[in-house]
C-alpha cells in the first residue's frame, strides 16, 4: 500500500501499525506525536492502529525554538 509520511511517498506491506512504522523509521514512540489524516492519535493506540492505503501520516517532535 502507499502512504505519505511527512510529505514523502512510501510503499509498505500490510498490515502496518503505527508502532511498526515508527520502528521502521528508527523513531522512539516517546516524544513524538502522530497525526493520521488530521486525527491526532493517543500514544496508547500506536500498537493497534493499522494504517490504510492512502493515509497521510505526520510525525512530529520537539525542536529548538524560542518564538516564531
Amino acid at each position, binding site marked *: 500500500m502507499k502512504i505519505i509520511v*511527512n510529505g514523502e511517498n512510501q510503499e509498505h506491506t500490510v498490515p502496518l501499525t503505527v508502532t511498526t512504522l515508527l520502528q521502521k523509521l528508527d*523513531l522512539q514512540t516517546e516524544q513524538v506525536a502522530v*497525526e493520521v489524516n488530521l486525527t491526532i492519535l493517543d500514544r496508547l493506540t500506536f500498537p493497534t492502529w493499522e494504517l490504510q492505503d492512502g493515509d497521510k501520516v505526520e510525525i512530529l517532535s520537539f525542536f529548538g525554538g524560542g518564538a516564531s
Partner: protein
Amino acid sequence: MTNYTSNDPLIIAGREFRSRLWVGTGKYKDFEETRLAIEASGADIVTVAVRRVNITDKNSENLLDYIDPKKYTILPNTAGCYTVEDAVRYSRLARAAGVSDLVKLEVIGDERTLFPDTAGLIEAAKILIAEGFIVLPYTNDDPIVAQKLMDIGCPAVMPLAAPIGSGLGIRNPYNLKIIMDTVKVPIIVDAGVGTASDAALAMEYGADAVLMNTAIAGAQDPIMMATAMRYAVDAGRLAFKAGRIPRKLYATASSPIEGML
C-alpha cells in the same frame, strides 16, 4: 550577614518554578551549545517548537537528548502559526508528543513584525482552555488584551518587550507597568530583550519572569551572555523587592553636614 537571594519561587497554575529566567532553545550553533547556555542561564523552563521529524536522516540527534525533560519543564510553543486553526492543531500535537498540558500560545499576525494577532490569540486560548490546556499566551503590550487573557483563564500572560528577535529592549515601559499593576496573574515579559540591562529593567518594573532566546543564542558568547542574563534577572528581582528610592530632581546629600569644619 543575611544572604539575600531572589530565589522566591514563581507559581503558575500550581506549578512551582525556581528560575525567573525562561529561555528558548532555538538558533544555537549545536545542541551542546544549547545545553551549556541553558545550564549557565539557570533556567528551569525552556521553550521548544513542534516540527516534523526528519525521517530521511536516521542519525539526526534529538534536542531532548541534551535537554533532559526530567530536569527542565518543556514548554512547547506554537511558533509559526498564523491562524487559530494552526495554533490549536500544534498545541494538540505538542500535548500528544509531550507529557503536559502546558503550551506557550502564539498566533502571529504579521511576518515582518511577528506581532501577535490578539483577536486570534483570545479565540485560540478559549478553545484550548476548554480542552484543559494551561495556556501561556504571547501577547502584545496591550493592558486590555492582557486583562482579557486573564479573564478567560490564562494562568499567566506574556507580553512582548519588543518584536521577537529585535533586541530593541522594552519599547513601551508604561504599558508594561500598567499590565503588571492591573493583571493579577504572573506576567512574563517575552521577546525583544537585547542585553542584560533590558532583562534587569523588566524585573525592576515588576515582571514575574523574562523569556528570551535570541539575546542569548545570538550573542558572540552565548554561554557568557546566559550567565549575564541570570545575574540580571536576579538583580532586577531583588531591586524590585527591595523597593527603589523615588526619583527627585535635586540632590540630597548622603554625607552628614554635622561635624564639618
